């Protein structure tokens, strides 16, 4: 299409369909426009109403999530959530998916996912201080898994390392349901001053609209639309729609933006992410209740012959759109010149509440803003609840192998093997504030210049959500809460990254609805609101969907880093104490999956009241300095938890068995709301637990160089370490 063709391209039903709009939606387009749209306008409707940008299937349910607390400064709806962490500072954070691009082109897909989420955070005036991720790959044996894992990890590292933001945590799962749709969710936490946070609502008629950052190229056109459709065998042909990242430019953009933000020149700012210039300009205008005139020929272009259509839909990375105060253009440009970045005034704010696109003086598009941005379609999709599964009776499982052999198998399994191979490829130390490194429950970074710490974690147990979306949704939030508590942090808020299959299938929609319900209940009970999030639907290939994966990113605050906890057993620890009650839940456990070969049963239920009591107790014990060693009990159960604590501290333990009841359930049940702590002062801990009405029991003693069960059966830490550390490097070294 040559650049002046935009009024002559016929809008055929095929073209409308190619743009992902159904008949109903196109009828609404005609109604809103009062005429047939031209190709530029059609393209804009297409991306703005894509599932990715409009949340049309999920909005109804997302609205039910609790988003408020005294410390919430900004909940969902901005580029990232903002919470108050005291002393005039705020934590700004969000998690976002880049699933579809990462499957097609793992390095660039993952890299630009990381780049995008960092922009979301620094566009609000925050310096990114920590990155995390939540990754899901297909089964290890699948021919694509190694290639995808290696590309994704390199991409995450390639971008985050160059940006100088430490990657301090994450999680990685393998399951056949992700064979055709991997999940790459990236989270960034930033620090800002509470009196210098930037928002996206445009204001001031006549104010200049300014474009900064990289030039616009043809990459990523229709990325948002791609992310809103199922995959099929031809999806690899969509490789050209994957954006290409340039972390060096983003590093310059970060520094330039923060330098500009230290002045008083910005009215509003928004990064150009999915749907690029279209989505950023519409969102800014819509939030501010103003109109915009854009001079598209002024946009810095990477290639010759680009059309208005391409400029509006490109997802080229490392770009920002700003509204400046009048007369500030030259001073602002000086900063971007210093950082050798493009700076162009590409439009102005108007009072028309319309988006008028100009191309060398000619009108290339003229659309009302609110109906596109705010009044986008919202669906109440039909949904079916997931049928409940029966609880697994713990006495029905008799041990086929010794407990130590089961431990050895589990700890070397793809589900539990060490992820060191991954996180050693991420710079997790840059900035010099990393206090708790990856491999523990949550990563911790010091709030620079203070003695406070920010703890952050990502969590979800998809097999629980699959079996029971409501309990699984609760569990994801509860586990994030627990992982923060285990470092001594007070959990403050979460970001949710909802990865699901095709919402047009009632069963899948039912998973989404259930997970939202569970997440909501847990957020309320734990005082742990949602402040930002992202939805990724249509994670299906050839009709096969992923396990529902609502990944939760949690952030908490450690008020005094002098009192924090890590998972490794320390020299002066003597007793091991389990906090929280054991009921013997083997449904959906890794023991059942790995040792018995059964993926079934009801997942462990989450008692949110007990969760809160146990969490409060554990945090107080850490704050008091009574506990410096703590690990939550999660995948694999008690024995795996203790083994991980032993490996991290290089000190063994002897574990008692219960006098009655199933040993398998005791050692391998995945009952929720539990922690193992190690202490030299067990009496004080038990007393405190008694007063707090929290179950606590001594489960063993620290010491030696083996993991021992009841003074008998044992495995040395060196053997255990080899098993735990060995799987991933040898898996990745095998020829594909």
């Amino acid at each position, binding site marked *: 299409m040559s650049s002046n063709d935009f009024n002559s391209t016929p809008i055929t039903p095929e073209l409308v369909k190619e743009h992902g709009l159904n008949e109903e939606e196109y009828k609404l387009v005609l109604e809103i426009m009062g005429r047939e749209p031209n190709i530029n306008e059609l393209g804009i409707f297409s991306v703005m109403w894509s599932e990715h940008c409009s949340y049309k299937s999920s909005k109804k349910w997302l609205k039910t999530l609790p988003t408020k607390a005294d410390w919430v400064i900004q909940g969902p709806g901005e580029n990232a959530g903002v919470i108050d962490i005291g002393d005039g500072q705020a934590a700004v954070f969000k998690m976002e998916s880049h699933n579809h691009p990462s499957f097609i082109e793992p390095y660039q897909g993952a890299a630009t996912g990381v780049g995008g989420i960092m922009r979301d955070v620094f566009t609000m005036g925050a310096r990114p201080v920590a990155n995390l991720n939540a990754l899901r790959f297909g089964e290890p044996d699948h021919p694509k898994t190694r290639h995808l894992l290696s590309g994704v990890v390199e991409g995450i590292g390639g971008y985050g390392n*160059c940006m100088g933001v430490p990657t301090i945590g994450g999680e990685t799962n393998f399951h056949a349901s992700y064979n055709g749709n991997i999940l790459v969710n990236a989270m960034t936490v930033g620090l800002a001053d509470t009196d210098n946070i930037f928002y996206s609502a445009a204001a001031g008629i006549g104010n200049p609209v300014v474009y900064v950052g990289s030039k616009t190229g043809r990459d990523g056109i229709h990325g948002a639309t791609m992310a809103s459709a199922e995959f099929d065998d031809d999806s690899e042909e969509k490789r050209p729609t994957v954006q290409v990242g340039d972390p*060096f430019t983003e*590093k310059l953009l970060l520094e330039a933006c923060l330098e500009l933000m230290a002045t008083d020149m910005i009215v509003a700012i928004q990064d150009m992410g999915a749907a690029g210039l279209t989505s950023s300009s519409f969102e800014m205008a819509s939030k501010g209740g103003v109109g915009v005139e854009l001079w598209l020929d002024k946009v810095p272009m990477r290639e010759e012959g680009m059309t208005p259509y391409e400029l509006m839909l490109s997802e080229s990375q490392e770009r920002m759109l700003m509204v400046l105060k009048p007369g500030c253009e030259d001073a602002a440009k000086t900063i971007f010149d210093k950082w050798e970045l493009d700076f162009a005034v590409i439009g102005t704010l108007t009072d028309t509440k319309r988006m008028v696109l100009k191309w060398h003086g000619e009108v290339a598009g003229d659309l009302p803003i609110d109906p596109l941005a705010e009044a986008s379609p919202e669906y109440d999709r039909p949904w079916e609840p997931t049928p409940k599964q029966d609880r697994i009776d713990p006495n029905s499982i008799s041990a086929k192998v010794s407990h130590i052999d089961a431990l050895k198998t589990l700890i070397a399994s793809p589900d539990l093997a060490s992820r060191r191979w991954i996180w*050693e490829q991420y710079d997790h*130390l840059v900035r*010099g504030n990393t*206090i708790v490194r990856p491999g523990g429950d949550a990563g911790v970074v010091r709030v620079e210049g203070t003695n406070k710490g920010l703890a952050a974690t990502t969590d979800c147990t998809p097999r629980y959500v699959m079996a029971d979306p409501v309990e699984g949704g609760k569990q994801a939030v509860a586990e994030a809460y627990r992982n923060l508590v285990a470092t001594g942090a007070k959990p403050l808020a979460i970001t949710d990254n909802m990865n699901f299959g095709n919402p047009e299938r009632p069963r899948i929609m039912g998973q989404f609805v259930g997970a939202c319900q569970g997440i909501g209940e847990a957020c309320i009970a734990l005082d742990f609101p949602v402040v930002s999030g992202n939805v990724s639907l249509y994670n299906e290939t050839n009709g096969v969907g992923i396990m529902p994966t609502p990944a939760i990113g949690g952030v908490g605050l450690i008020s005094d880093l002098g009192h924090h906890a890590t998972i490794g057993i320390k020299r002066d620890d003597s007793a091991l104490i389990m906090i929280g009650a054991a009921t013997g839940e083997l449904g959906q456990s890794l023991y059942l999956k790995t040792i018995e070969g059964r993926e079934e049963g009801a997942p462990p239920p989450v008692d949110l009241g007990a969760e809160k009591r146990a969490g409060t107790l554990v945090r107080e014990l850490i704050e008091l300095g009574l506990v410096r060693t703590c690990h939550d009990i999660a995948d694999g159960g008690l024995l795996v938890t203790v083994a991980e604590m032993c490996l991290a501290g290089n000190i063994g333990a002897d574990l008692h068995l219960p006098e009655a009841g199933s040993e398998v359930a005791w050692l391998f049940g995945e009952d929720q709301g539990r922690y193992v702590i190690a202490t030299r002062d067990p009496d004080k801990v038990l007393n405190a637990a008694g007063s707090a009405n929290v179950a606590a029991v001594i489960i063993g003693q620290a010491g030696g160089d083996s993991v021992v069960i009841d003074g008998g059966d044992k495995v040395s830490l060196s053997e255990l370490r080899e098993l735990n550390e060995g799987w991933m490097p040898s898996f990745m070294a095998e020829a594909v």
Partner: protein
Amino acid sequence: MKSAVILFPGINRENDAIAALKQATGTEPTLVWHGDTELPKTDIIMVPGGFSYGDYLRCGAMAAKSPIMRAVAERAKQGVTTIGVCNGFQILTEAGLLPGALMRNASLKFICKNTHLKVENAETRFTNLYGAGEIVEYPVAHHDGNYFADSDTLDRLEGEGRVVLRYCDVDGKVDPATNLNGSQRNIAGIINEAGNVLGMMPHPENAIDPLHGGTDGRNLFKSMVEAAS
């Protein structure tokens, strides 16, 4: 005691360098922009780590041609204590202030982890607070730390006591198994002929606080300060 930290576009460990220098000197270092042509009066020059110019050409190659590097070379020639860490080491080799080159890690992967190092020469102005042969622990975080020089150069470096740090294990064993990135002769840090310029891949600035998990890096900065005062 004055120190200066050189900033190139894409440098990202300046924060860490500033903290270490501030701790050792008691004063804020001066930040010097790559486009400047003059250095302030300073006792210590530090070229920090990161990805100058994105490392899109050879690591450090473009930064080495920055206007400020002429001034850095001049001061180094005058004997001012100059340290380059990680990307800073790469820049100093590209600028010809140190011999050799840093190639891609033998594993071809970025490596971020703690490593043990043997202080081979404790008589330098960077290491004189360490004992001879002392084993210290600093983190590394790099993709291109694989030190290479021809064997004549290596022999000369060894002969002149200019190999300052070598990768080793906790017991000080230096062998291929403890060579984390494929460096010739496990070399992690070297000095110039005059002994006032140090280049090293590991990050002593990330081991200066008990909360880092170790403080072995402190003595390196303290040594520089004592030598310069």
